[in-house]
């Protein structure tokens, strides 16, 4: 949220000049006033001799309790930072996935002697920063306040109290975040990719879910904190305006008495790439774009001789530079996407290769073809000398820029220790980069680029996209996964012969009261309640045949939103600001809402298609595609057992031209005046998180005055 605002307030319109037009230049001399001969300017300046890069020095020492300390002196500005970083491998969190990160977050929200408000006040008073995470504690501020800063840092490190109130708050935040994740196709793709790449037995393959979050207890958090925040499991990195003597004294004074502990450092089997290509699909009904990740695990450890040639190779394929081949091919040449990239990192446990893009539905399979083509080209053809040089310049340039920050030097030092790298690993970086040849890059590509052993993870509209992806799969079967990486079995149920979509709709009408009963319903008033962040909102919806409708949303006795449709025109208002609506998609939506039971007329107003049987929340359901006269489609799911409508998925045009997909689940059908109504609705996609609406009362054929629908 914060970054949204920073963006808003950036008065300047920061503009990346990423527009490229490689065309013949049509020269037209601007009518300048100058008489001076400027022809010499056509010569492109040649670079001077490159200056050798000096990497700053660092020093290190150990405390008796096992804490390793790294010091980088830099007195350019009178600040100093203390970064404590844990060394252990990630742990398996199991049914309580998410507790480790919550433990880190909570450390700063209370100690035995201070509340969160007191910690905030003390940190702000000295103009400092203090952050905690599952991987450590970071503190920075002016040198002259470092004593106070270290008091605060070590207070949260030694005396974190994990207050219940802050724990509840953190849990709620995490749940809100997950609710958003569920509808975000990139987040879904990320979850599925992690699960298939690493498997459930590897910590990188664990995904935090709503259920696992509910399972987290304060005790889980405390246990992690007590077990892993130990000096023999940590580095302290001190950077800034400080001498070695001062650093030693501060390390001793503040961290010398920190007690050692037994720390398990779990190890794991290294996940392998699949033996043949696998297509993995995450369904998002109604999606207009597909997120594609071509990905697999890679065994590439920090410090390996392959790291640098791999970086060059990836830079050519789809790295940071705009000129990467994936970008050139999928964006510049084919216009399938706004951006296509690849990445490959190094990691002590297991790393990964991922090539990704978001593309339009209809070019999803073509895009996968291009990804595979570019990966194969990387393996089969040597790159040009020019491509090599561009990649090297770009890497060297960003390496040089990074050296401006003393934190970079500290990271070099930390990595040198942590991964037992040769002492000159970073100081020889540019030399080694320069020595890389076209042959090295190709050899690296042969080893690390594996288009035939990749997972092709696609999140998008199953109906529109999935079948076309079958040819990419090694055994020609696609596996389906849910938003949090859970495997979904696609039902193989065979549909009864001769069953039509119309039959399904008619069975539904009969099951919830029958055609005759529903035709006799002339008015209906439903009151539903929903809970939003601890507050209750009441929705009152009134409908009157043939075509009137009113909706009032109230909160704490006040009307916060109102909509009316009088059969011809509509009105929408919020807090007393009313807009009359006489045309457009909003009016159409109101019109359809005014129909008490549209299913009665489906056979004459819609085109229906029975698509198969799917599993919805553990129930087998018929899937019916409904297309209206304007060509707009929605999907409805009817329980095979009792014929009830249990899910409807439709898309809605948002005001900004974006399309949002809204999924409504209907459960808890109960009888009201002879008809069955769902007493619980769960709606996803309208708000950042799913909302549940419970039916409080319903009245059929009561008297509703036309005035309730009046538009003015």
């Amino acid at each position, binding site marked *: 949220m914060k970054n949204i605002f920073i963006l808003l307030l950036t008065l300047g319109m920061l503009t990346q*000049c990423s527009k490229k037009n490689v065309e013949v230049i049509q020269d037209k001399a601007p009518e300048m006033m100058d008489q001076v001969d400027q022809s010499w300017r056509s010569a492109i300046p040649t670079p001077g001799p490159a200056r050798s890069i000096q990497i700053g020095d660092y020093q290190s020492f150990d405390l008796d309790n096992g804490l390793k300390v790294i010091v980088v002196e830099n007195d350019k500005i009178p600040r100093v930072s203390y970064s404590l970083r844990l060394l252990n491998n990630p742990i398996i969190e199991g049914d309580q996935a998410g507790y480790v990160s919550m433990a880190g977050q909570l450390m700063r929200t209370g100690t035995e002697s201070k509340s969160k408000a007191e910690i905030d006040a003390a940190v702000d008073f000295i103009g400092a920063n203090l952050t905690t995470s599952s991987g450590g504690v970071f503190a920075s501020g002016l040198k002259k306040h470092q004593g106070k800063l270290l008091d605060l840092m070590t207070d949260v490190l030694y005396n974190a109290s994990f207050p219940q109130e802050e724990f509840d708050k953190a849990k709620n935040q995490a749940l809100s975040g997950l609710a958003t994740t569920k509808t975000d196709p990139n987040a879904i793709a990320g979850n599925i990719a992690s699960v298939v790449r690493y498997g459930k037995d590897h910590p990188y393959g664990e995904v935090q879910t709503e259920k696992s979050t509910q399972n987290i207890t304060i005790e889980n958090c405390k246990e992690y904190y007590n077990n892993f925040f130990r000096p023999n499991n940590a580095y302290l990195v001190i950077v800034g305006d400080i001498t070695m003597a001062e650093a030693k004294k501060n390390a001793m004074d503040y961290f010398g008495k920190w007690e050692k502990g037994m720390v398990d450092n779990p190890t794991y089997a290294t996940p392998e790439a699949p033996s043949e290509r696998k297509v993995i699909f995450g369904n998002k009904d109604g999606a207009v774009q597909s997120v594609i990740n071509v990905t697999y695990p890679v065994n590439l450890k920090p410090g390996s001789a392959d790291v640098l040639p791999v970086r060059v190779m990836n830079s050519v394929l789809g790295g940071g530079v705009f000129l990467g081949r994936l970008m050139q091919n999928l964006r510049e040449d084919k216009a399938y996407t706004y951006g296509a990239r690849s990445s490959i990192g190094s990691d002590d446990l297991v790393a990964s290769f991922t090539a990704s893009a978001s593309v339009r539905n209809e070019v999803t399979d073509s895009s996968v073809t291009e990804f595979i083509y570019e990966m194969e080209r990387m393996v089969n053809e040597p790159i040009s000398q020019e491509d090599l040089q561009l990649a090297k310049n770009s890497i060297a340039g960003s390496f040089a820029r990074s050296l*401006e*920050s003393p934190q970079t030097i500290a990271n070099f030092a930390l990595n040198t220790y942590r991964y037992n790298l040769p002492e000159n690993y970073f100081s020889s970086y540019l030399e080694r980069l320069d020595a890389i040849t076209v042959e090295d890059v190709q050899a690296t590509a042969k080893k690390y680029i594996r288009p035939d052993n990749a997972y092709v993870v696609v999140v998008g509209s199953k109906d529109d996209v999935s079948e076309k992806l079958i040819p990419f799969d090694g055994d020609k079967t696609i596996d389906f996964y849910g938003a949090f990486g859970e495997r979904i079995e696609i039902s193989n149920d065979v549909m009864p012969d001769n069953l039509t979509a119309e039959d399904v709709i008619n069975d539904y009408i009969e099951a919830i009261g029958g055609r005759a009963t529903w035709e006799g319903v002339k008015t209906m008033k439903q009151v539903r309640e929903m809970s939003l962040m601890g507050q209750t909102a009441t929705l009152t919806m009134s409908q009157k045949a043939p075509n009137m409708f009113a909706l009032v949303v109230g909160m704490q006795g006040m009307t916060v939103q109102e909509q009316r449709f009088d059969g011809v025109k509509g009105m929408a208002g919020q807090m007393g600001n009313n807009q009359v609506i006489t045309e457009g998609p909003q009016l159409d939506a109101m019109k359809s809402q005014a129909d008490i039971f549209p299913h009665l007329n489906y056979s004459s107003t819609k085109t229906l298609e029975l698509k198969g049987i799917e599993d919805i929340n553990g129930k087998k359901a018929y899937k019916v595609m409904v297309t209206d006269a304007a060509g707009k489609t929605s999907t409805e799911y009817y329980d095979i057992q009792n014929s009830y409508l249990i899910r409807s998925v439709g898309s809605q045009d948002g005001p900004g031209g*974006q399309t949002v997909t809204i999924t409504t689940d209907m459960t808890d059908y109960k009888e009201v005046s002879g008809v069955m109504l769902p007493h619980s609705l769960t709606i996803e996609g309208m708000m950042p998180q799913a909302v549940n609406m419970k039916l409080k009362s319903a009245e059929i054929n009561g008297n509703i005055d036309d005035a309730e629908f009046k538009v003015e």
Partner: protein
Amino acid sequence: MIRICKILLLALMAGGASAQMNAIEFEEYDLDNGLHVILHQDNSTPIVMVSVMYHVGSKNENPDKTGFAHFFEHLLFEGSENIGRGEYSDYVEKAGGTLNANTSNDRTYYFEILPSNQLELGLWLESERMLHAKVDNKGIETQREVVKEERRLRVDNQPYGTILQETMVRAFRQHPYQWPVIGSMEHLDAAVESDYVNFYKTFYVPENAVVSVAGDINKEQAKILIDKYFSSIPRGTTPIYRPTIVEPPLGGEIRDTIYDNIQLPAVVMAYRMPAQGTEDFYALSMLSQLLSQGQSSRLYKAMVDEQRKALFVGNFPLPLEDPGITIAFGIANMGIDVKGLEDGISMEMEKTKTELMSDEEFQKLRNQIENNFVSRNSRVAGIAESLANYHMYFGDANLINTELDRYLAVTKEDIMRVANKYFSVDNRVVLHYLPKPAQP
């Protein structure tokens, strides 16, 4: 020809500042054509920042031709007599550097960060832009589309993206701050090639620019190169338009509701305030810190932590060359109505008018200011931009070392005084941002 105006400002210039801030040393001079040059040498990392700041922003535009200043920021990447279309970024990427540009209401800024042995490349690219950039219909057509796409991305499709625009248009009736930097797409469409050429010839002239170079340079060699590339660029011949419009007081509260493509309601409370650099501006800046810097700040603590009414809240003065506004902005938590949020923010703002803050809280503000100041000069790119800003707006680049004193001269009584003077109902624009009515 180099005429040296001020020579080497030494460390003693920083006297008075309470942090032992290491002074930023720099050298500045004018070329005969009026181009101002600022050099900062720091050889610790082999990179160099080459930048040019032009004293033209959206406020210099004709009210019928808004968006020109920002449009030029795009157009001037199209190429020059010696640089092919779209090749600016090719040259820089191939040299291992990065480049960018940005535009505000008051100025336009272009820069490259390059390996230091490519200093000359950067100077060549920038001098080409100043001397004879390609300003023709082909480039204009291309960039119109890009700017429209940018508008969709940053304003129209960005939740809350219209806040500045909607606020400024109500807060100013006469001054050019009333229109957005990105301007009107109709104006850009309607303008013809000669309009663009005139704008270029008027504002993109050496006497309206500052070249600021910072990083791994040898100053003597840098001066020779700057002279080579910039000294033969002629002065302009058209007078430079600088608005002298003084906006009268708002004269009464303006209140409005905006329906936007958002999920959560938001409130904007914008108060008119004096220009940057004035005494009251510094006091108002500290007032905004009191309200919103850090988790212990008044608004964050009350609205986010304790009452949980807001997902985000803050107060931000816009540093502008002419009198501008300070904006309080809050996004409501789910289920909180916008009036409740406004009342909560108002209550905290009222307290700053009636209760003098404690010495401890005041000291916190001073400590934060000091930390902000000390921290911001950690990169040569930031130093080059600050030096250019201070020269362009205040004619005193050395404010990079001394501006802190202006903040430290503010008393807590000053802060209460400016709260009373500016946080008044008839001096503000209040906007409620509400989700477009959800469709049934």
